[in-house]
């Protein structure tokens, strides 16, 4: 028995997350992302190659299901391609918010790549809709029976609205694929939450495999200070983000700050879609942080007071403003347009997310003192504006990864979604500090994880009760009530050394019995063996250790004699 784990994407890199795990014969694809740094074949995971390796005719028969962890494009971007072009027709699972919000992300990016780069269209808007229609929505903690043998379950992952860690179990083998997660709560989301599960394998992201972050508040204050300074100097602030996730978090932060500081400078959202997305957020308030949930009847935190209507031409208006523009990482679209206009002025400010994929403008800006960006041979942009790198990220830091791994205590760990040197560092830590074998395969490599399994058999009430009796302490009933029995598997477990006899009869299922039950089954009488001192061969005194032994073995059977 084993879990075969094939990494199709996000192996020793960030981008196009896609892992296929074969658990007790059930093949599950976790995430189906695109890589935004590439515009060639490397854009998508190498599905064809995987299919050939499995020796399957088509993807539908090869896979039991596809599970998407969250709406970021590097986790879902290849899904319409996979279903509409590659022809996968099996079940697809994602959480309610992911199903609701993913079409935005996909369509926004599709437009960007089409309009801006004239890239060959990989899938159409209709493909996105057709694809999303097939999706089965998941609620958190719900145990979903994919088929007779395979169950999956989603756990809260923080990160972005609707992000989930996925538990999958088939036969006796169980694993968790984390997707992206955050171990500390942010403005609008709670921290990741999972039960203490019994796992053979944990596949975790490792974006910040080596980084330990300090207080989030300080970082947020830095950001607000930078923005405030810029607008009070008459500058413009460009915040390139994706339509969902970071945009809402930062906007809540700014909206709140504007309110407190009584600022009147307009905050814009580049496309109507983000405002529309806010409506979704309102309906999905149950997936946000407890604080927002508790207060939403009075004030819905996604009703932004200071966000104003925006038109494309405003980009040329004089005077200060804050603009949220898509896509993040400035890989094209309106954020690139605004960047071209605003980057040359030192009054302006551009904020960059904590992580930018290689190949994007954002990545170039991050990598030091860039003064000139060359887009193509005719387009050179002088960069004189200030650049503020957001130091808070919706990803867990290395402490969080270690904490989660220790909490779950899986038998094996696989790292994905990170950079090779940092992953090597983290692997060392996991192996030396936690004593778990750890792997970080490259794309298209696979790892085989051995798993434990159990044999099902029946036993008698007598055996169960005598085990509990041997425990000798309190009754099972009281013990467990005190220990509490949450959903976790290890809590509420009860231990007792049990001694019994396994009987295997031809044409019958094996069964565990107590000793005297065995005698009954065999139709035999017990033959007692006793030890006595030679001198006392006439006296009925017993050698103590064996008598005790006999007594213990006889528990419960004495009444019969």
């Amino acid at each position: 028995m084993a879990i075969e784990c094939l990494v199709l994407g996000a192996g020793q890199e960030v981008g196009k997350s896609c892992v296929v795990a074969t658990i007790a014969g059930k093949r599950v694809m976790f995430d189906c992302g695109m890589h935004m740094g590439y515009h060639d074949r490397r854009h998508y995971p190498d599905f064809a190659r995987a299919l050939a390796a499995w020796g399957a005719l088509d993807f539908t028969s090869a896979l039991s299901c596809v599970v998407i962890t969250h709406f970021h494009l590097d986790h879902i971007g290849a899904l319409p391609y996979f279903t509409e072009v590659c022809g996968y027709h099996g079940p697809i699972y994602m959480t309610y918010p992911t199903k609701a919000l993913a079409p935005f992300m996909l369509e926004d990016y599709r437009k960007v790549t089409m309009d801006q780069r004239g890239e060959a269209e990989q899938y159409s808007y209709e493909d996105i809709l057709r694809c999303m229609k097939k999706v089965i929505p998941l609620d958190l903690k719900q145990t979903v029976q994919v088929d007779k043998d395979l169950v999956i379950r989603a756990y809260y992952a923080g990160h972005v609205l609707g992000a989930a860690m996925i538990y999958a179990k088939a036969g006796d083998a169980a694993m968790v694929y984390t997707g992206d997660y955050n171990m500390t709560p942010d403005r609008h989301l709670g921290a990741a939450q999972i039960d203490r599960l019994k796992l053979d394998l944990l596949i975790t992201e490792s974006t910040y495999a080596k980084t330990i972050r300090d207080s989030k508040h300080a970082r947020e204050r830095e950001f607000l200070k930078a923005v405030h300074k810029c607008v009070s100097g008459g500058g413009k602030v460009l915040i390139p983000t994706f339509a969902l996730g970071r945009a809402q978090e930062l906007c809540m932060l700014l909206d709140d700050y504007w309110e407190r500081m009584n600022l009147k400078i307009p905050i814009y959202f580049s496309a109507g879609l983000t405002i529309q997305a806010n409506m979704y957020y309102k309906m999905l308030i149950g997936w946000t942080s407890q604080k927002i949930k508790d207060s939403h009847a009075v004030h819905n935190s996604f009703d932004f007071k200071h966000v104003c209507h925006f038109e494309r031409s405003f980009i040329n208006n004089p005077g200060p403003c804050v603009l949220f523009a898509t896509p993040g990482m400035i890989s094209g679209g309106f954020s690139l347009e605004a960047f071209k206009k605003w980057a040359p002025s030192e009054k302006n400010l551009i904020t960059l997310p904590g992580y930018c994929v290689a190949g994007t403008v954002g990545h170039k800006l991050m990598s030091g003192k860039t003064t000139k960006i060359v887009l193509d041979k005719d387009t050179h942009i002088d960069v004189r504006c200030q650049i503020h790198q957001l130091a808070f990220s919706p990803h867990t830091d290395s402490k969080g990864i270690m904490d989660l791994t220790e909490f779950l205590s899986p038998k094996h760990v696989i790292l994905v979604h990170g950079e090779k040197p940092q992953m090597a560092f983290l692997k060392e830590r996991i192996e030396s500090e936690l004593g778990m074998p750890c792997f970080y395969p490259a794309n298209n490599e696979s790892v085989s994880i051995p798993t434990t399994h159990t044999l099902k058999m029946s036993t008698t009430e007598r055996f169960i009760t005598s085990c509990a009796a041997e425990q000798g302490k309190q009754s099972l009933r009281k013990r467990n009530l005190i220990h509490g029995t949450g959903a976790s598997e290890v809590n509420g477990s009860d231990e007792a050394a049990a001694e019994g006899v396994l009987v295997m009869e031809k044409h019958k299922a094996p069964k565990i019995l107590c000793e005297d039950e065995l005698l009954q089954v065999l139709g035999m009488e017990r033959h007692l063996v006793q030890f006595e001192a030679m001198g006392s061969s006439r006296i009925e005194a017993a050698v103590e250790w064996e008598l005790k032994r006999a007594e213990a073995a006889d528990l419960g059977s004495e009444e019969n004699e």
Partner: protein
Amino acid sequence: MCRDSARSTRKSRLEPNSLTRSTRHATPRAAFAPKEAPTDASPLAASEHAAALRAEAAMKLTCLSTSGGGGSYHSPASHVLELEGLRFLLDCPIDLSALAVFSPVPLTGDAGGLIRAVPRYWSPAAAAAAREGGVDAVLVSSATGMLGLPFLTRLPGFVNTKIYVTEVAARIGKLMMRELVEMHRAFVRYYGPDTDGLPKWMEGDKLNGLASMLQKLVTEDEGKDLTSLMPLYSPGNIEECMQKIQPVKYGEEVCFNGIFMLKASSSGLELGNSVWTIKGPRASITYLPSSVFVSAHALDFDYSSLKENDVILFSDLSSLNDMDEDNEKLDEHAMNETDSSLCHHSVLRDDGADADETITFLCNNDDITEEIERISFICSCIIDAIKSGGSVLIPIGRLGAILLLLELISETLHSSSIKVPIFMISETAEEIIAFTNALPEWLCKSRQEKLFSGEALFGHMELLKEGKLFLFPHLHSKGLLAAWKEPCIVLCPHWSLRLGPAVHLLRRWHADKRCLLVLEQGNDAELSLKPFMPLAIQVLECSFLSGVRVAKIDSLLGVLNPKFVMLPEGLKSRCSVKKRPWSFLYYTKGKTIELPNLREDFEVHLAHNVALGLQPRQLNETTAVARLRTDLLVSSGQYQLAAAEKQSDRSKRHLLHWGAVDPDRLLPALQEKGMLCSFAADDNCAGERSVLITSPVDALVKITSDRTVIYCDDEGTSKHIYDALCSVCNGI
């Protein structure tokens, strides 16, 4: 204490009726052979757990209450279910029927002879059960099913109790409790606080004076004594109750006490309402309260998650309540019984096509169409009243009905271009309205689609935006006067017509024949309206779909395929028992019924490494045995046998022997071990033979038919003798 329970075990096992019951209902699949008289546990062997398990081996069900005013939606049935020695309380509604005999405040006129005091309430039947045997866990199926729990929170038998309920039902339930307490406070403000002692009206002659009016209440429910009415719980009790709650999602499996897995699935009746699956080590049980196959607002009845559970506790009493309504149809049904029983049967076959047919029959849209028709009719009555210049008062407490009604009213108003304000006046209105637009996971598929296409989940969001719907916590809320305009439509609590804004508004409009009062059927309308006499207002009594229709019960059971069905006695005559693969047990209020063990055996999971380490011993051609020393773990409802941490060094030696020892074979075995030995000369006792060992040390082995005694002072030699003995004696 453990002795007692062990003794009571025996009694219940040998009770004639429990035996006959088990044989009568035994089906081939549920073979239950009563065991031999249980052995009297020796003091050493009997742990409390062992005793508990043995004592409560059978499943026991006690039905505590069936319905207490307001119909089964407002007051679902309540039971205590005992499994493997643990007690589960299934639902704990509040019985508000006593409210009807209290006069609403402020008092006007003679109050129709009703009691003029702070109202008191029936103590939930579960309180007595909790006092007697304690409660280990509560499974709640609906918001209304938890309204009685704050009465129990202070009981000692409730200290460690966990309450399982869906997130949404818990939330709505808490709002309902809060609202009830708040509305009740109007009486306290009016009369002053209710003291703990006996109120004046309860004193002998005064109580007799009330007798005629109260008769109805009391005789309906024998065994209830008016003096057992008690004061309402406090906000503090509500908080205590909420702290015990373990909220769950649909489909979330939670482990209780290691050996039970609990799972809620949607029942379709209302937002957050659930059906429960209890999986124990030896049986899986479905607790099936009122359910609706296809809903216009809540997630549909997820009956497929209940398939193949061993036992169904059918607790949907809705069809008992609207017995009269259905009677006609039932007669038709009965006439066709012979014909239809045939096709019914084919429906129950397991082949795919017919199963699909059953499901189409169960999930056809008839119910939902009828429901929409009913609500449309209410809606048309409302419009008529408005057109005639009257206002409409709708004191209905069903969330789903209200939400649908709001949508239909707004459509109708829109199409007939009438402009009247709609008021929702309730302590919890604002929260309910905001919250119902933020729970897509709990809604029917068609409303989930609204989420995915970015529309509001319910029509009331539009009404609010357009300024047609106003939400106020009280009649005297700031701003209400400014918005107030008659005619208008008011939705408010409470269906009892004793609490909340309904009292004031009914007093305002009762004499106006243009106005309309919409009531839900199921209460005694005459008694409810007594303090508002004389009436000119039109009264519309309406009913809503509240559960599985009688005609569908049989098909549902066929799809679920249980072994046993526990059915309310009242449905006995209405469910065919002929040729069904399951057996029925009938329950009535206040009685305990027992169900035999469905499986004698427990399932354990043996770790693979333990299995590999086993040393099987072939006893004969067909049987092999192996000694097993493991740790027993219980988690997530599974017993697991894992490798024991300390392996005994004696594990290779026999510890149990059986049969006879042949002394003629022992002798060579001893010699093989290098011992000098011979049979003792004085082998004259009946059946006893002795072997004398002279080297390496002196020893003696005495063998009788059931016992061998080794006399030896040297430990090493006695071990050798023991080993030799093992080689000639059956054992393990």
